[in-house]
């Protein structure tokens, strides 16, 4: 009676602690924050906890910058620390910092014990870092779930509001179906390739001629579907608007931004590294998904009166744009995708910051009608949102324009010109809703006194006590306004001088070798 391995000496894997340091900072922060949340003193819970969370994210960001340019395998090929990982980690940290600031005085952390809220946030961030660094199917799945599960809870943190719990449960169910599908797909890929390591899968596809094995193709198909759920790609996007609307707004902002970055990031790595050998199979499939997503997202957004729902659909559409960068599987594609992810992050955070601020002022702050007159009364809030909307719509001199430009260029270069045209068509449709928001904000009061509301604008704000713009003297927390302002400026800055960001994106793209 022998055990095969009990006798064999197993070497512990080499661990590159420096490479793991951003992750360690996040997880350590999560633990500390959780414990700090146990203290009874209000100032500790309400201010020290978010501050420590900020510090942890800041440390992770600093370590990320410190590690820039490193290209090393961590933990025996389970994760890879390269510029793609680091660039996306930077985005996560930005989103994390913004989310902490947005939640600082929000009701959600108060209702869910501060420690828990921020701890979950940090854990989710850690999951994202794991996910985008994953070079192994196991790490991929682990990262995905470490990302998702805290988010399920975060969605439900505003427990007293009816929609919150519901959105959490809904997200959990749909998200788990997505995870399970992805898992099943990865199981098949493993079955076909005989390894869970990306590099080995790619080698197996290249060497063993399994590129047309039914097992592998089924696996790839299921994996596409699973990731589509996470990235809210149509037709697997239906949960998105409901969940976005139900979740507390800072969490929505986080989900909208960071989850998408993570999902697209791992899609890039999985398809462009592990499955590059079967690119002629998945390229058309993802391209078609992207096209459907662009149309469905944009058309869906048209009829929305809730800003959060609108941004949810817009996020669906943006995921479609981003997929174009995945489809072409070229350096330019990855570069464009990374750039657009950054632009997307900046634009959405600016927009959500304004929504959070507006919600602090008015109970219907999420409704498009709550924005009326914002331009003249609160220009500090109106400008970021304006820039965000223009950027998302792809107006020039904003980050969004450059990003779309890069994506279209990558599509054309990758012989997917029609996808570039789809991006443009999507942008055209999107004008309909982005401009509606901008117009609502900047319209001065109607000249005709009898005219209650101008035609073409969504129904005005419900009349309620204190609902009139003059009466709302509740001031938006300054840190929220700060977030909006900073990211609003960034939209412009990237739009005017994108070269540094492109350099980063180029480095990130260069870390994926073996592209088409």
């Amino acid at each position, binding site marked *: *009676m*022998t*055990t*095969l*391995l*009990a006798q064999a000496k197993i070497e512990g894997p080499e661990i590159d602690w420096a490479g793991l340091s951003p992750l360690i900072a996040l997880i350590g922060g999560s633990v500390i924050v959780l414990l700090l949340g146990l203290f009874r003193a209000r100032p500790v819970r309400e201010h020290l906890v978010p501050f420590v969370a900020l510090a942890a994210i800041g440390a992770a960001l600093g370590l990320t910058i410190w590690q820039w340019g490193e290209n090393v395998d961590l933990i025996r090929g389970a994760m890879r620390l390269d510029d793609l990982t680091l660039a996306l980690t930077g985005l996560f940290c930005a989103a994390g910092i913004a989310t902490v600031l947005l939640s600082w005085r929000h009701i959600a952390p108060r209702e869910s014990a501060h420690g828990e809220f921020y701890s979950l946030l940090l854990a989710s961030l850690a999951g994202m870092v794991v996910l985008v660094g994953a070079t192994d199917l196991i790490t991929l799945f682990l990262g995905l779930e470490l990302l998702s599960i805290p988010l399920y809870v975060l969605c439900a943190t505003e427990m007293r509001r009816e929609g919150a719990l519901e959105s959490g449960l809904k997200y959990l169910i749909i998200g788990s179906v997505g995870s399970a599908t992805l898992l099943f797909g990865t199981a098949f890929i493993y079955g076909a390739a005989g390894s869970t390591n990306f590099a080995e899968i790619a080698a197996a596809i290249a060497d063993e001629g399994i590129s047309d094995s039914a097992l592998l193709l089924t696996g790839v198909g299921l994996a596409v579907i699973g990731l589509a759920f996470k990235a809210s790609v149509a037709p697997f996007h239906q949960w998105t608007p409901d969940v976005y609307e139900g979740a507390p707004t800072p969490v929505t902002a986080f989900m909208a931004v960071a989850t998408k970055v993570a999902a697209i990031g791992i899609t890039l790595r999985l398809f462009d590294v592990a499955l590059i050998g079967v690119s002629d199979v998945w390229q058309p499939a993802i391209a078609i998904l992207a096209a459907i997503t662009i149309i469905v997202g944009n058309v869906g957004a048209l009829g929305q009166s809730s800003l959060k729902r609108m941004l949810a659909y817009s996020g669906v559409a943006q995921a479609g744009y981003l997929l174009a960068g995945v489809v072409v599987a070229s350096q330019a594609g990855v570069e464009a995708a990374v750039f657009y992810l950054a632009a997307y992050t900046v634009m959405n955070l600016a927009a959500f910051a304004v929504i959070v601020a507006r919600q602090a002022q008015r109970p219907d702050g999420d409704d498009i009608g709550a924005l009326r007159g914002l331009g003249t009364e609160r220009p500090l809030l109106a400008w970021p949102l304006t820039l965000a909307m223009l950027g998302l719509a792809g107006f020039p001199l904003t980050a969004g324009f450059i990003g779309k430009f890069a994506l279209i260029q990558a599509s054309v270069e990758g012989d997917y010109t029609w996808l570039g045209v789809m991006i443009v068509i999507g942008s055209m449709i999107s004008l309909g809703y982005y401009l509606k928001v901008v117009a609502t904000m900047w319209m001065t009061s109607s000249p005709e006194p009898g005219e209650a509301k101008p035609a073409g604008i969504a129904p005005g704000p419900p009349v309620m006590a204190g609902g009139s713009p003059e009466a709302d003297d509740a001031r938006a927390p300054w840190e929220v306004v700060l977030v909006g302002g900073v990211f609003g400026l960034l939209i412009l800055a990237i739009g005017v001088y994108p070269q540094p960001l492109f350099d980063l994106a180029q480095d990130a793209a260069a870390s994926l070798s073996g592209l088409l």
Partner: protein
Amino acid sequence: MTTVLAEVGFYEPVWIQILKALVIFAVGLQIVPIVLLAERKILGRFQQRYGPNRVGPFGALQPLADIGKLLWKEEFRPKTSIGFLFVLAPIISIITATATLAAVPFGNVVDIFGEPVGLYGIDVNIGILYVFAFGAIAFYGLVLGGWASGSKYSFLGAMRAAAQLISYEVAGGLAVVGVVMMAGSLSLTEIVEAQAADGMWFVVPQFVGFLVFLTAAFAETNRAPFDLAEADAELVGGYNTEYGGGGFATYFMAEYLNIVVLSAITATLFLGGWLLPFGIDPPTWVDPLVVIAKIGALSFFFIWIRATLPRLRYDQLMSFGWKILLPLATINTLVTAILVVVW
């Protein structure tokens, strides 16, 4: 070929496997009425009375009479019950008990009439996990029974049983981790052999683990002082309130079989299984007897505790499990890990 969990390569021809299973089953089942009777007699002695002494010499046939009585009862069940599950639940209980019996090693591989035969039902590389797996299924036997009865006492009993079982399963499981670390195997026979190799029973280095495991075993078998699931004073009979006749007999038998099996497992993990102390190396045919003797001793301990300790309050039960046993088991694991690696 690399497998993480070790592979056990040895197994006998099919006919021997079946035959030995039947034998072990028969022997194991014989121990149950003995323990049953012993409990009643010993409890009687503890409480200054005789215990059963009418049926057969010294009441020796009392268990048989009890079973006969139960089987000749009229079959009835509450109209609120869910028939299929109501019938199934006790069957699950007895199945898990007997299935666990298969893992108990009564000795190592011996030659019987020229054929090597393992003196155990099965010896697999995941022996401990096998035990825990069936332990987890046993949970369904109790909860389904209580829930399917459609009676509030049954249901309350089932809930308590559920909470108690899962609470103590954690601690029990953790307590074994230390043993696994020291033995480097999950196979029960290999654990015994590891104790032989170390020259000391694991109860010595793993004394904390032993205590925790034993306590958990009391809770897992719903024995006093953890018999809240069937606390007759509060819940009439707990999850088996509505059972009479065969169903009750099955539950009863399963419970006592569980005592036997858990005693055996405890003996295997901590008390050296078929080993004798002080390096005494008897002929192999003695091994099963050693195991049975240890089972007997532990069963006596079970009964002794029942006679001695009062029943815990429910919150005490849970607090004890979570706040004392769990940290204790964890610390034990950690310390063991350090010791194993450092040595």
